[in-house]
């Protein structure tokens, strides 16, 4: 007979890891399944608003989380990607790219990922000039012209990072003006190397072995920009495609009540993948703990 867990936790970011800490304390028979550890926190720069740490980097905070979790003997099953959920007779089946698991309760804490452009050449040139992590790959484009797609804070962050090392930075922005913090906009506009293309969309990424340029459409007019690097910074989307049996809001976030309960009994969700207002590391942690306590209560009642 297949093993039935008390709890499965999907995702090992702040929410999933915190849920695992509580699951140990409640002595639940559980597993954590994830494609990585830390989620967006692992990619974050400086964290200055996590209580107890006046200053800590994202990767450092991630290893603190991981150490805390592993100190209880919890190991994450990874890399494994969830493909689907099935509700069956008071149990939930989780289907991944490698296996299947059955549990009485579930916490979905799969977070968010960078949004893709969805244009020709995007997949082909990923890591061949196109990147979703300016923080990681930015220094590789020293001395090269680049395009930064997105005029919000994350886009402007990438611009400010590249200003010192790139001779030409094109900013491609769908809105009629940049939308990030005024302090950042001022710095970006002051720089001699930046050129802002407002009300413009990328329609194609082209090149040979590596990126040679992008085609953009600005209010009906199409033209090319010759760049060797393309940084996509157009926001995030919830990692919840596999959760088709759960109710979501217009943004695709899983809807939960204040006890992290989804529309399905025994299935809870926590952190950035949910409709909880404000996406913060400290909030995701709190939500993860709440979701686990709710799962524990559900188990004691059912």
């Amino acid at each position, binding site marked *: 007979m297949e093993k039935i867990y008390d709890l499965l936790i999907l995702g090992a970011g702040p929410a999933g890891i915190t849920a695992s800490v509580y699951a140990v304390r409640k002595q639940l028979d559980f597993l954590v399944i994830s494609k990585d550890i*830390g989620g967006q926190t*692992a*990619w974050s*720069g400086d964290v200055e608003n996590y209580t107890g740490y006046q200053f800590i980097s*994202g*990767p450092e905070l*991630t*290893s603190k989380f991981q150490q805390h979790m592993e100190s209880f003997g919890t190991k994450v099953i990874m*890399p494994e990607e969830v493909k689907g959920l099935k509700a069956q007779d008071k149990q939930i089946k989780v289907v991944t790219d490698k296996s299947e698991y059955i549990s009485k309760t579930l916490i979905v804490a799969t977070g968010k990922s960078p949004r893709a452009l969805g244009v020709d050449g995007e997949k082909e040139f990923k*890591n*061949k*000039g196109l*990147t979703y*992590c300016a*923080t*990681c*790959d*930015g*220094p*590789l484009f*020293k001395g090269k012209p680049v395009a930064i797609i997105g005029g919000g804070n994350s886009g402007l962050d990438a611009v400010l990072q590249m200003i010192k090392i790139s001779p030409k930075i094109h900013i491609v922005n769908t809105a009629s003006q940049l939308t990030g913090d005024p302090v950042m906009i001022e710095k970006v506009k002051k720089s001699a190397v930046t050129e802002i293309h407002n009300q413009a969309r990328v329609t194609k990424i082209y090149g040979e*072995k*590596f990126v040679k340029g992008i085609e953009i459409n600005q209010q009906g007019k199409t033209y090319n920009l010759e760049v060797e690097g393309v940084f996509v910074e157009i926001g995030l989307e919830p990692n919840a495609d596999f959760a088709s049996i759960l109710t979501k809001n217009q943004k695709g976030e899983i809807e939960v009540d204040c006890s992290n309960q989804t529309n399905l009994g025994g299935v809870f969700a926590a952190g950035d993948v949910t409709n909880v207002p404000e996406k913060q590391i400290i909030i995701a942690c709190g939500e993860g703990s709440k979701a686990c306590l709710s799962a524990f209560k559900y188990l004691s009642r059912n």
Partner: protein
Amino acid sequence: MNVKVYSTQTCPYCHRVKDYLKSKNIPYQDFDVGTDSAAREEMVKLSGQMGVPVVTIDGNLVIGFDKEKIDSFLGL
């Protein structure tokens, strides 16, 4: 065993790869491709791509922090 890590200072997964190798007591050579342009060219030539980290283990290529691949090339 000859282990090389091509990384940037700002990339979280580069730190994780290096921490992992340290935890297994594997000595490695570290190349900062953000500042060392010769190493950057070598990395692009070897891996055919521009994302970090790239690890080579006795000539075997690993792109990204792929723990399973790293373990198999290290014989762990």
